[in-house]
């Protein structure tokens, strides 16, 4: 099982690089457009959150690892060295009532939880390690 890995600065411009990297790591598997879109959405929400929130100090980096098992399960592991944050424990946003009335927030993590087929989080030394898996 090949593992591809990459280290990126935690900036918005890393988004395209990350997407292309994961696309290549999936080969030769060809996910359906729907699954591919879900993967892309989960990656965007997670990377963007690292950019916005993980490093309240001077910025930092993200490490990505991708692995595809013979059964067609793709796992993407994102590691950052930012403040401890476990998205699995983050409370779901208030979803009732008129969206346009309330402050807009908490949508990203909710989307990730709904779209990833599997999510695991652990804190390892000074890093957050989040793994999301998809059955291609």
């Amino acid at each position, binding site marked *: 099982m090949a593992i591809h890995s990459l280290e990126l600065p935690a900036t918005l411009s890393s988004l395209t690089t990350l997407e292309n990297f994961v696309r290549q790591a999936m080969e030769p598997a060809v996910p359906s457009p729907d699954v591919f*879109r879900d993967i892309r*959405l989960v990656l965007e929400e997670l990377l*963007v959150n690292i950019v916005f929130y993980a490093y309240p100090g001077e910025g930092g980096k993200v490490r990505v690892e991708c692995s595809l098992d013979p059964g067609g399960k793709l796992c993407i592991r994102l590691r950052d060295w930012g403040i401890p944050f476990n998205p699995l424990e983050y409370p779901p946003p208030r979803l009732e009532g008129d*969206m*346009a009335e309330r402050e807009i927030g908490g949508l990203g993590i*909710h*989307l990730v939880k709904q779209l990833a087929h599997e999510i695991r989080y652990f804190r390892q030394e000074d890093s957050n390690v989040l793994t999301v898996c998809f059955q291609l």
Partner: protein
Amino acid sequence: MPLTVTSMEKQPGVFVVSPYGSLDTNTHTVLERKIDFLAREGAAKVITLDMGGVDYISSMGVRVVLKTKKELSRRGGALVMMNLKPQIKRVFEIINALPTLQIFSSLQELDDYLTEMQRQVVHG
């Protein structure tokens, strides 16, 4: 995938705005600025987002839609949507935004709504 945005004035202050492409963190500014522009130069009150050309949306795209709705409501206008592809509808569904957003399924339905809106804007 980049985003391009076209717009058309149906009646004074009533616009159909059609984004085309991906509505995400790197592209949402294009839609945001187009809407700012219509609000400023076109005195936009009612905007119909024709989402038929959008095949990807992230939470940043959703923010633009919800913020625009908020801003237009504040000014006595409205934002409505039409032609959502299944994958786009699904994103709005997951965050339960569909009840908030008026979604039209046919042009006729939209036109009836706009006529009613226009009547209110003019007389209200």
